[in-house]
């Protein structure tokens, strides 16, 4: 099977590609990259559109096994493809949790059977995500796990955290740390500040995140083991990581589109779709996250796609589940809030959403280069669309972007040469 992607503007900073070229895909791989190619079984007209290496999400929740009413691997990967992702790494807080090779294998097999994009499972750091005994990282790695994390239930015991970092490094598994001092954050359901006082909700102070970021940075510096900080949301977290990087600490981090596009004001009126952990912060934090993206403190943009059932959001704010269904708005939100205002260029965005996260997971397919796997995303950057959760392919309709106009939409997603999503619905 030969597919020709014709006339698109190719952007791949990892290979120094930026210009109008055609791509010939043969048997799932990029076979040729040149101007004016022809002779194919099918041709995709990409003129006026942008073609770049497939987006990679290093932090999402596919909810299977256990929470199929929220999302499953089939619906989740369909949504991912619609968002321009060709590969996603899913967090282990399922039922049962992913703390052994059997569950890793289940996810890998299920994704092969029903998935539309590549799925990389992330295993637990500790058995049962309980923060006391190490999970079987070696077995999980053999079964296909790409990283370890106790996402959502951070390891409170610093000694266990140290050992999990040291042990995981023997297997080359990246440690992804959800940073939250659970005691300091306890009972909180939004950012702590004037708005939390005004709404009468207990707040989660920025310090609850920053204290744990500082701890993990210190552990990484002491042990020499790399650590990746998940979804940073505050100015202080960015500052701690920036300083650590300057000293040569092997710390990397990600943020999510909602932390540079929205503030805590989205919670006003007790909007449960804006309830997320870490919580949406202040305008000062939002600006600081953008600055940290620009200066390279932040390595990757992840979605933290966290689909929930509507009954889990249509309740009292305190009782509502944390999380945002993020696959289908991530690229547009990032394009609208980072590239459109001129904070970064498209090449940098592709680094943040494809090349860097893929590299951190050890899964970089090679970009737009002859011989590389044909994991390709094509976007239309001119159209502006209004977010309508009813149109989401994800089962989770929980988005704080509802009704907001975003620029830049996904036109086509190709995984190993197969078209997995085609827009223009």
């Amino acid at each position: 099977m030969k597919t020709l992607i014709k006339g698109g503007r190719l952007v791949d900073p990892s290979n120094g590609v930026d210009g109008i070229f055609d791509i010939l895909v043969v048997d799932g791989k990029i076979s040729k990259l040149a101007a004016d190619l022809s002779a194919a079984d099918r041709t995709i007209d990409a003129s006026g559109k942008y073609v770049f290496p497939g987006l990679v999400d290093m932090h999402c929740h596919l909810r299977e096994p256990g929470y199929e009413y929220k999302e499953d691997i089939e619906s989740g990967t369909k949504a991912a493809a619609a968002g321009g992702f060709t590969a996603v790494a899913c967090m282990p807080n399922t039922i049962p949790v992913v703390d052994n090779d059997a569950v890793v294998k289940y996810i890998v097999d299920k994704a092969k059977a029903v998935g539309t994009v590549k799925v990389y499972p992330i295993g637990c750091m500790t058995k049962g995500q309980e923060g006391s005994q190490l999970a079987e990282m070696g077995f999980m790695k053999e079964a296909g796990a790409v990283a370890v994390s106790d996402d959502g239930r951070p390891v409170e015991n610093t000694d266990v955290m140290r050992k999990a970092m040291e042990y995981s490094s023997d297997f080359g598994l990246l440690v992804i740390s959800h940073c939250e001092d659970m005691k300091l954050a306890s009972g909180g359901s939004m950012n702590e500040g004037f708005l939390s006082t005004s709404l009468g909700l207990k707040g989660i102070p920025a310090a609850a995140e920053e204290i744990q970021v500082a701890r993990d940075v210190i552990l990484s510096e002491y042990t020499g083991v790399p650590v990746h900080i998940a979804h940073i949301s505050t100015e202080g977290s960015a500052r701690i990581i920036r300083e650590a990087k300057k000293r040569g600490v092997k710390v990397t981090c990600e943020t999510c589109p909602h932390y540079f596009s929205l503030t805590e004001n989205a919670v006003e009126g007790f909007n449960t779709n804006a309830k997320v952990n870490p919580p949406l912060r202040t305008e000062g934090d939002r600006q600081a996250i953008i600055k940290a993206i620009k200066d390279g403190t932040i390595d990757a943009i992840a979605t933290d796609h966290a689909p929930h059932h509507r009954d889990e959001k249509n309740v009292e704010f305190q009782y509502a589940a944390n999380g945002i269904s993020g696959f289908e708005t991530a690229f547009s939100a990032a394009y609208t809030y980072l590239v459109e205002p001129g904070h970064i260029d498209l090449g940098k965005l592709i680094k943040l959403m494809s090349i860097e996260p893929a590299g951190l997971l050890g899964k970089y397919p090679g970009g737009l280069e002859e011989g590389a796997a044909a994991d390709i995303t094509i976007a239309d950057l001119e159209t502006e669309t209004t977010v309508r959760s009813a149109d989401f392919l994800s089962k989770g309709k929980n988005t704080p972007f509802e009704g907001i106009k975003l620029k830049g939409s996904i036109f086509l997603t190709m995984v190993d040469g197969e078209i997995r999503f085609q827009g223009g619905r």
Partner: protein
Amino acid sequence: MKGMDLKQMHFGKDLLGIKQLNAEQIQYILNIASGMKVLINSPNKKSPHLQGKTIITLFYENSTRTRMSFELAAKYMSGTAANISVSSSSVAKGETLVDTGKTIDMLGTDVIIMRHSCAGAPKLLADNVNASVLNAGDGMNEHPTQALLDAYTIYEKKGSFRGLKVAIAGDIYHSRVARSNIYALTKLGASVHLAAPRTLIPPRIEETGAVIASSLQEALEGADVVMGLRIQKERQKSALFPDIREYARFYGIDRERLAIAGDDVLLMHPGPVNRGTELTSNIIDGESSVINEQVQNGLAVRMALLYIYTRGGRYEDVD
């Protein structure tokens, strides 16, 4: 009130908090309440204003005084009042708030009075029912009827709010009463001073316009009104203060401290009072105390609110 065009007054469907009201609306409610107070003190406590109207109280938290106050308010005005006891209803079987609300709505309810431990719960209910929702306290958010009865009490005794210094002492962090009072009294022109250990002051509360006093002494000096708030003993378990003994010594109000405020000070408390903790018995029962009058004023204010909100939140001439 004089010279105000009452025909323009519009309150909306629900009373979720003082935040949504302006000074004129608050003043209007107080004026209606004063008429209701006359009725309460007449030998025949019955008016026809709620005839044919159904009022349901839906309390997810225990309460005796607020619930009783609303029920009697409805009954004195010839309304049909019923209450849903959460512990023995479908709520205990796991029914969602929205489903419970829709059920109550379909029974022909005009007004739902709701108390809930979660901030924002009355808004969730209000967004999902046709009935008017009156917030009788939601988490740490608001308790608008308490603030209105407090404002009524101050207005009745002092005649005006402008230039008054109101000191609030106690657990302000967890208090919806404090928040609603801050909103109401600052809108009406009073200056509100807060006194509590730093652990019981909500983050950035000063942005409401309230003043965080540097000491209890400073809050009390020259105060026209002193409001005590209930201190829950359980709070010491979460490290908010060492114990009641130390709290009472440094933050409790006794006769000597009340004297700092001046002779014509009003001593208030939303009740129920912990005697000897936030206030000593001799001042609770003393000549400055209006704590018992607050209870009756609460009834008058709630009658006024039921009157207003059974008319679609619109003004009509009182017949």
